[in-house]
């Protein structure tokens, strides 16, 4: 948005500056490398004028012609279409990438890394993750489709002895099931049980995008999925992936909807009309023009659902849409899905941990366990760690702030927050999405009295990871904190995971670890500095119910060392399970709440 904010004539002013510098340089060269006389200098300036004029004309022309407006025309051409599309992606995605660079830079400072180039590797890793997610989204939306698969009226999804494997790893085994058309089916199962693989197989991504090997058959309304690429079923299937923000290409919700439509071959006029209809239908009017990275999780999910339904598909696939939402947003989204299913006769298949909210829609329940599909709800068979009471809290106050004000951008979020923490104390901050929990933790971490006392585990915790394996990451943490070869971080990590050292896990890329293990790693990395206070943003992000119970135990282990823990969470069940003092953010104030029994 840089050149927008600088105004239309910015290129012209830039070119005038360039031209002036050009003339000055010519005079300088004449002075240094030629003879000095006033006549010679004015001659140098005069002779520089023609080229300076060329520079200014170029600037004038590029101010007249807005390349951004030319791009859509370019991607509609027969030739040069790919490069036009790549440039359009680059132009629309750099604002969110700037946001990412800033986040990674913050994470680099949180990790205590001083080298400026240290964030290049995590930045590239993030970029590639986004590119893959975006490419998958483009494929599902029909980018480059040459035909549309002919489909029967009943969009039945039918698995027959279907198995899927990636390389040598089996993912789904021998599934035979007919998903009923026009109904809501919910897949349950623990993390890694293959829920995403079922959805991606229906979308065709497992077979055609991730190069999975399949046996058996899978047909969707009579279309052979294993032989039909995702782009050829764009009008039939809409897909909402797990981390919806990863697949966003554009800078605002409106541009995102238009981009998706243009990718599927709509003209510019058609796509802006259709986008406006979707914006009204999904009540996105007030957020349509906002920077997409500032949308709350609930808003981002609604944008993604609107984008998935843009081509009026008959099947909608959703991967854990409720995962990051607070209770209010969950209720709203569930009612939206119910309405959509009834009014559009959509076949909806979704994977979800949060099953309680969905019961009102009386869906068809399925459960997945190690790649096998069964009827009914998944219940965790693994033993639940019994909740222990919290250890005694010391009387020594180790951290306090008074009258702290927190703002995000120009918005004032919290005024006059006052808070103190004692040795071995655990506290929670709650409140719905977007109320300012993350901003509060960041502000606490950067307060002057926090220096060398407080360490923050940010919400996007994978940005803390800088190494290629878990082992290297733990070793690096010891080095950074100035106690190389102590093995302290590894010790912390395995004890908060409550498990034996696992050589296979040690060789894993940190970003490939399960969500719960990533949280444990991030906490261990920040504990390596031996802080007195750890701030943790959303420790239950992406965790299933078993992992959530385990996370409560992890936090108890941390406070037992005497470290104080303050965590932010919108997960009310988790907060009450932990049973610690709670602060809530209400109407811009941080208020202490009674512990609910």
């Amino acid at each position, binding site marked *: 948005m*840089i*050149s927008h904010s600088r105004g239309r004539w910015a*290129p012209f002013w*830039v*070119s005038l500056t*360039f031209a002036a510098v*050009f003339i000055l340089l*010519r005079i300088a*060269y004449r002075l240094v*490398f*030629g003879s000095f006389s006033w006549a*010679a200098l004015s001659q*140098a300036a005069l*002779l*520089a004028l023609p*080229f300076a004029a060329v*520079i200014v004309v*170029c*600037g004038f022309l*590029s*101010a007249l012609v807005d390349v951004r407006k030319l791009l859509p025309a370019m991607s509609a051409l027969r*030739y*040069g279409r*790919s*490069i036009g*599309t*790549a*440039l*359009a*992606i*680059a*132009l629309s*995605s*750099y604002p969110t*990438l*700037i946001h*990412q*660079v800033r986040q990674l*830079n913050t994470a680099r400072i949180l990790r205590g890394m001083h*080298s*400026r*180039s*240290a964030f*290049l*590797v995590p*930045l*590239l*890793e993030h*970029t*590639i993750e*986004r*590119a*893959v997610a*975006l*490419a998958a989204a*483009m*494929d599902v939306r029909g980018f*480059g489709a040459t035909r549309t698969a002919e489909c029967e009226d009943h969009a039945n999804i039918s698995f027959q002895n279907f198995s899927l494997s990636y390389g040598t790893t089996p993912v789904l085994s021998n599934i035979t099931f007919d998903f009923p058309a026009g109904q809501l089916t919910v897949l349950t199962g623990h993390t890694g049980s293959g829920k995403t693989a079922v959805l991606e197989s229906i979308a065709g991504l497992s077979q055609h995008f991730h190069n999975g090997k399949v046996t058996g058959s899978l047909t969707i309304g009579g279309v052979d999925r294993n032989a039909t690429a995702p782009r050829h079923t764009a009008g039939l299937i809409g897909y909402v992936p797990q981390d919806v923000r990863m697949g966003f290409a554009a800078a605002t919700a409106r541009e995102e909807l238009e981009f998706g439509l243009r990718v599927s071959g709509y003209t510019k006029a058609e796509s802006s009309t259709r986008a406006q209809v979707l914006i009204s239908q999904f009540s996105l009017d007030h957020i349509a023009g906002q920077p997409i990275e500032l949308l709350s999780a609930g808003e981002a999910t609604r944008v993604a659902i609107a984008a998935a339904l843009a081509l009026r598909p008959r099947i909608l696939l959703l991967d854990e849409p409720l995962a990051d939402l607070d209770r209010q947003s969950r209720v709203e989204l569930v009612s939206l899905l119910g309405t959509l299913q009834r009014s559009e006769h959509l076949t909806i298949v979704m994977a979800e941990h949060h099953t309680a909210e969905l019961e009102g829609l009386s869906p068809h329940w399925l459960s997945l366990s190690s790649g096998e599909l069964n009827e009914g709800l998944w219940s965790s068979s693994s033993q639940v760690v019994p909740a222990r009471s919290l250890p005694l809290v010391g009387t020594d106050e180790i951290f306090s702030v008074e009258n702290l004000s927190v703002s995000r951008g120009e918005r004032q979020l919290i005024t006059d927050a006052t808070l103190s923490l004692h040795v071995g104390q655990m506290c929670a901050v709650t409140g719905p999405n977007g109320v300012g929990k993350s901003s509060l933790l960041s502000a606490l971490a950067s307060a002057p009295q926090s220096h060398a006392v407080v360490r923050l585990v940010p919400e996007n915790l994978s940005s803390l990871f800088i*190494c*290629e394996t878990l082992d290297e990451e733990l070793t690096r943490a010891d080095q950074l904190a100035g106690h190389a070869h102590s093995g302290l971080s590894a010790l912390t990590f395995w004890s908060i995971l409550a498990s034996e050292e696992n050589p296979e896990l040690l060789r894993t890329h940190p970003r490939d670890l399960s969500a719960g293990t990533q949280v444990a790693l991030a906490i261990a990395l920040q504990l390596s500095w031996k802080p007195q206070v750890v701030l943790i943003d959303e420790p239950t992000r992406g965790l299933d119910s078993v992992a959530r119970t385990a996370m409560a135990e992890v936090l108890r282990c941390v406070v037992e060392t005497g470290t104080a823990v303050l965590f932010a969470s919108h997960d009310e069940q988790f907060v009450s399970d932990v049973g610690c003092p709670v602060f809530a953010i209400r109407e811009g104030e941080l208020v202490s709440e009674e512990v609910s029994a």
Partner: protein
Amino acid sequence: MIAQLNLKNSFVFLATALAACAFAWPLFATALPQQAQAAVPVVVFALVPALLVVISLLLDGAVSSSKTLALLGLLAAVGAAVRIASTGVGGFEAVFIILILGGRAYGARFGFLLGMLTIALSSILWGGFGPWTAFQMFAAGWVGAGAGLLPGKITGTADKAARRKEILWLIGYGVFASYLFGALMNLWFWPFGAGPETSISYLPAGSLPENLGRFGIYTLVTSTLTWDTVRAVTTGIGLALSGVPALKALRRAKL
């Protein structure tokens, strides 16, 4: 199919060679008769953008998959994002590192397009369109393509020694490319940049050795000792510090 590909490749090669000649016009133009000389810069300024269009049309088919396009677009944007988000040294230099690593990981064609698009994007963002834009796009494209053409390509199962060797190659190339980029951008611009009647001026009637000598001094004092050296050092250090894991990260996305 293969014959078609080879035909396409030879056209790409031809266009590249023509563009290289256009960059070096001050060295050729002296051989022309006096009357024709004035026309040379005009021809060059028309030829280079035209060749750019020809090459991008020729390479367009090589990047048609959604994965390649998404990577191309996002990697081109990353350079711009780093430049905006960070201040001081390390802006344009990070772009060089990304160009070299991208060209290395995904091949010469991808590298060329990445260089081209990165410059296009930053010209759009900063409003810096000028007679130099097409030349810059070519030069940056060559930097990316060169990294893809270097020998010593390793496969997925390479050991640590092979990876280190590859990075040493890339560091050497990065330093070389930093200076070459500067020299190339100076070469076509030199007759305009220096102006007439100085000891570093282009001599329309001069001999090739004489002009080469003068150009050498021009490029040395205007950029080799300053910008190019900063770029060479930061690119080299950046590649040494993060080259191995960064390449590994890029190669995790199989095209």
